[in-house]
């Protein structure tokens, strides 16, 4: 093999190795950071493990928001109009957070029906319902219809 070819081969091998390492790194990071979207009915059916990072969504149940204590603790209930899930959050809620409006929160379950949120998502547009929430509520309503004979 002549020196130019050998050099080229070496470069190509190095390149492939770099791509391989980079891809492995990327896929690993992707898997670590995936958050599944879970509706209150899914939580009720045991589809999310306690402590696992997930996102939940639904509608903030009317009359459920409670500010409490000296800090910025807030508790509310998220529903898909079939099952409900209690949520605790410490911090400032987004402007468009309102009872009866859709909400998405990231965090983890700390109990079978208690969700500790570290982020509550805001939307730019008050008429907009995130696709996930719309879907969760459709599923919730369908299940309700199934149960009511």
């Amino acid at each position, binding site marked *: 093999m002549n020196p130019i070819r050998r050099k080229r081969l070496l470069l190509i091998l190095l390149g492939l190795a770099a791509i391989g390492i980079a891809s492995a790194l990327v896929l690993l990071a992707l898997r670590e950071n995936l958050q599944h979207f879970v509706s209150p009915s899914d939580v009720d059916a045991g589809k999310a493990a306690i402590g696992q990072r997930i996102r939940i969504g639904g509608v903030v149940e009317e009359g459920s928001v409670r500010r409490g204590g000296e800090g910025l603790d807030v508790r509310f209930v998220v529903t898909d109009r079939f099952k409900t899930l209690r949520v605790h959050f410490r911090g400032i809620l987004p402007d468009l957070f309102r009872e009866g409006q859709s909400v998405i929160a*990231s965090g983890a379950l700390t109990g079978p029906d208690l969700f500790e949120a570290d982020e509550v998502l805001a939307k730019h547009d008050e008429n907009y*319902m995130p696709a996930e929430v719309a879907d969760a509520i459709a599923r919730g309503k369908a299940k309700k219809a199934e149960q009511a004979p």
Partner: protein
Amino acid sequence: MIPELGQFSLILALLVALVLGVLPMIGAQRGRERWIALARPAAYVQCGLVALSFALLAHAFLVQDFSVAYVAEHSNSVLPVRYRFSAVWGAHEGSLLLWALILSVWTALVARFSRSLPDTFVARVLSVLGLVSVGFLSLTLVTSNPFLRHLPGLADGNDLNPLLQDFGMIVHPPMLYMGFVGFAVAFAFAVAALIEGRVDTRWVRWSRPWTLVAWSFLTLGIALGSWWAYYELGWGGWWFWDPVENASFMPWLIGTALIHSQAVTEKRGQLLRWTLLLAIIAFSLSLLGTFLVRSGVLTSVHAFASDPTRGAFILAFLGCVTGGALALYTWRAPRFSVDTGFEPVSRESLLLLNNVFLVAACAMVLLGTLYPLVAEAMGWGKVSVGPPYFGLLFPILTAPLFLLVPFGPLARWRQDQAMRIAAPFKIAFIAALVVAAAAFALARGLPLRAVLGIVLGVWVIAGTLTYVRRFRADPQRRARGLSRESIGMLIAHAGLGVFVIGVMLVESTSIEKDLRMARGESVEVRGLRFTFENIEPLDGPNYRADHGVFVVRSGERIVATLHPQKRAYRNRQVMTEAAIDPGFTRDLYVALGEPLDGGKAWAVRIYHKPFIRWIWLGALFMMAGGLFAAADKRLRERRAQALTDAGADALGAAA
């Protein structure tokens, strides 16, 4: 009547775009002079018609014609005049029209400033741009007509989304679109070259300023968006790795790779096929960005209520454009002559490495952005990719770029020695370490990331200055002077250094406090005492606000008085108006959350953000660098010369 005229003019523009997209292309293929000569006039007429249509929509907003559904939905009688104007592109329909307008302006500019190129080639470039116009104009007319009437007219309109009632939002979309659409020129150039089957270095030279200008606008657009999000969204972040932000960032990454590979192609004739491919990808990603923003398929803070038919239309259009161009590429690219080669240590190699890292970073962002869509389509459930994915990988993939940036400009073309390149950088290297050590000594407990940021930033800036030092040491080159292209490159690279210092310091040393404060209470942040003095009601033109008064003191000295607001707009939307005391080395940021205990106390955000201005300052440097380079004399067209030695240095000839 006037809105109908606007629509009529838009339909005419579509017809003209069709003519422009078809006839000159066929003419160039068959060698029909008259059809070729049609290209330039058609480009001008199309531009005039779209501009008229846009002006008429703006008119409907200014005179408040609430019988136009789009106006009624996004404006109202008390909306201030400047926002009535920006409301034209405040929502879907109008922003598509703006897209079409900017595209036809670029097309007309290409028609005007392409005298140095052969007519057949220009005809093809304009034709491709015409075809892209056809796509956007029909998308506007078929799925999102801004001139639709709502009869009988309404007495008053709804309102413009209050988030958009802001200076940043007046300028952010046009700048961003200038960038997105500007890549259409590089794209049209690549497609025309592929059809032609040959490229001349002068054509590449001609396309460089267009790409540089588009890239500069995109840089400014993204920076404006980031700045706007920072002060307007009320939670003090400057980048969220949100799908829509990524949508604008991906074309930027590829565009950055493109301006570097174009330089190699123009100067050395190397990497030609790669440059053509990058041009196609950059514009495809711009279209993908438009699709992601406008279809609402991804959950994003930018997602607005949307209509699936629009998404399907844009997706089909994206498929045609990208698929068509890539098919053409696979078919024709092999005809272009193979590169003559260069050594592993050379300027070409360094620029190629730059491209490799930028493309890898872009691929990483693309994967993270589209993964939720893929997962849903494959039935893996609804997932989202958390920002830590990007936050972890992006610095890893781009750190080598920061390390290598200073070397590129001082490396020799074709062949060089690593030791020779590295030798002059001793001072820059020592400067980076000394400054970082000094910063560490001054601000004890400075986190590792901040120190790394300072090392990288000072290294890039001092390394860039090394180029100037070497230049001045050489009397011959000094006599000739620095070209604008080199100055632009130096400014942009220095901007990168400023940017990375800003990012790393903000990310690692910001203090963010969310707390409950009653009137009269104080809180101490980094030696500054923030006192919540008062809060009172205040009426604006189309909102009512709770107007807070916060005084910041250092000892007894008043540093700043801040007035954050909580506004309730007429359409019942609530908005946080943060108050910021900007500074070269730090920003003080106060935002009101919500009233607690029936208004006795408020939830308040108090942030101290060191060096955050440097992020946007760096971006401004990069933009200025791009514009400077685009203004280089060498890149300007010279008709006489072009005619005398036409075709002298063809890069690839048709088989």
